[in-house]
């Protein structure tokens, strides 16, 4: 039954569904990322990579 239903499907609809799905995700993410007041959050988030934490006790020396 399941196989028959799938076999009788018009597969050429699938690329269109895929494309629409992607467009929806893309537009969604795009608009989302431009939400009001997000600039500050992003500025701060971008800096996360630069910090390793406060060093309390350093072992070994830089040669």
């Amino acid at each position, binding site marked *: 039954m*399941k*196989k028959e239903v*799938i*076999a009788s*499907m018009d*597969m*050429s609809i*699938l*690329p269109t*569904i*895929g*494309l629409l*799905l*992607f467009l929806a*995700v*893309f537009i969604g*993410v*795009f608009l*989302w*990322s*431009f*939400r009001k*007041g*997000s600039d500050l*959050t*992003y*500025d701060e*988030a*971008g*800096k*996360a*990579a*630069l*910090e*390793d*934490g*406060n*060093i*309390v*006790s*350093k*072992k*070994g*020396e*830089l*040669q």
Partner: protein
Amino acid sequence: MSTDSTNTGHLEEFSYNDRITKWFVGATMLWGCVALLLGVIIAFQLAYWKFNLGLEWTTFGRLRPLHTNAAIFAFIGNAIFAGIYYSTERLCKTRMFSDTLGWLHFWGWQLIIVAAAISLPLGLTTGKEYAELEWPIDISIAVIWVIFAINFFGTLVKRREKHIYVALWFYIATILTVAVLHIVNSISLPVSLMKSYPIYAGVQDALVQWWYGHNAVAFFLTTPFLGLMYYFIPKAAKRPVYSYRLSIIHFWSLVFIYIWAGPHHLLYSSVPDWVQTVGMTFSIILWMPSWGGMINGLLTLRGVWDKVRTEPVLKFMATAVTFYGMATFEGPLLSIKSVNYLGHFTDWIVGHVHAGTIGWNYMMTAGMLYFLVPKLWKTHLFSKKLANLQFWTATIGLVLYMMSMWAAGITQGLMWRAVDASGRLVYPNFIETVVKIVPMYWVRAFGGVLVLLGFFIMVYNLVKTIQFANKNNKDQAEDVYAAPPLSAAKEEHGASAHRKLEGLPMLFSVLTLLAVLVGGIVEIAPSLLSDKFVEKAPHIKPYTGLELAGRDIYIKEGCYVCHSQQVRPTPSEKLRYGDPSTAAESVYDHPFQWGSRRIGPDLARVGGKYNDMWHFRHMINPRDVTPKSIMPNYGWLTKNKTNFKVIQKKLKVMKALGVPYTDEQIANAFNDAQMQAEKITKGLTEHGVPMKMQSKEIIPLIAYLQRLGMDSANAKKAIEEGQE
């Protein structure tokens, strides 16, 4: 030293497990040498066949899978782990979840590499590109990957930083997707301890395999390195990423689109047209997020461009991102069907792949190692001059590699399709198109030597750096850091939804997995659930036991590395090879053997084209029948004995997978195979071949090759005779 300890006040003290990163760094250097050396060896083998050394363990067919596995999983794999362990700890302000799991991950992964290095030269292979390792090793990979995943997600859970930085999103996508790809593609039924057949066949197997194969590129060679890019470039440039907003769009577009692009490896094949169209369309769309990422990486360097000239770390990373941009432009270009028709099966693809692996992965890894080694060992780099020397050696080597492969690929592609005014092939002998590009193989091999030399220079430079540090830096204890616990993090007012999402790594992971799976489900699920894809044609019969044994020898020797079995539906292919391949013709092929490169001609319709004696002589010395052939001699096929006893088991496993063998065929498997072998050998004895050859591997291989395409040829003949 204790992992974590609570301090009075609001800060907790902890240390990072840099020892494990150091070991992954060491493994990266070691396996990098091995992988690149193997690449150089096989490059010379194509330039001059005698470099195959006349040994069954060292032919191109067996070493090429070893090279790709060593480069992807050993060299680049260890580099990824080094970078992920180092950056995840720091981005989460915590030690990795478990030191023990970390060591299990490290040693387990190295053991898998050693198992691959032993099994592949022995010819123990599934015959699926980039997934050649047999089932016990596949299971080990899954187990070790899960251990890595637990360690990674455990670290996310115990983090002190509320939000997970963009690099970590890419790691999450990598870990989840690689697990899904590996497990789905590796499902198989074992015949023996080191032999199995995949549950998929023909078109289904092709779709699953290239969904895996393409996304191994996407989620093993690309997403983890984008994560590393988002961490190490800001770190080395000492400035934040150019646009965090762009990184969000980059991430979601990339993980959503990438998974759809797999079928661009199957253009003009017997895969349904709509699947090919989806693969092509999404490959072209993929250009944009790829370049979004590239731009984000490069523009992070704004204001520090002067440092790109002087600092090896930035020099390598800027170059890596540039090559990433070139490779991700070339990929979509090659996915356009008409361009693909020219480039597919040629060295253009090989050049494209190496622009990515050497230009992007090798360069990025070199930049990362030049950053990590001085940091981890708390010292300065031994020599910037040597780093510069490596940079130029590797870059010139890579440019020679790419240019020679472009020239070779486009030349050969054009020669294959050249048809004169009277409608005949201009170069009907395949070997003409090979001889023409052999000079390019020498240029490529020379380019490869430069890339390898550059790597040796880097290893020397890094080892000297480490030796100096170990001598002068006696205190090897870990630094102690302090950070407030996660519970102290305040809710941000007005935080965007995505920002909140980053605070919920598990939900984030589920959404990522969903984005990744959608493409796979739409493209692959119909083929797995519907018989429409695998229409059986009554004239296509399963292989006989002897042919099946021959097919396994074909796989064992890695014939698929140089020969395709898929005739594309175009005039020049029809003139050269015959009718286009159909889906029904590979319906019993577990695994499919369509191949991806024609270093030799397509074999889909080779059955009956030559007599048995031609094949016999061709295997012993290809140049006997095809002057100037670059194929190795396969003399051992006339010495190694065929294992007739296992044939019955093979038929049983195939039957379990859906191949319609009767109980009678299975019961008589041994005798039937012996009889067919006797018949073939008797024919050969007329040309002076001794009867004892009957028990040797060359006989089943001939049986298999003579069967290829014969069912369709016989059916066509019957129809034509009927019409007369």
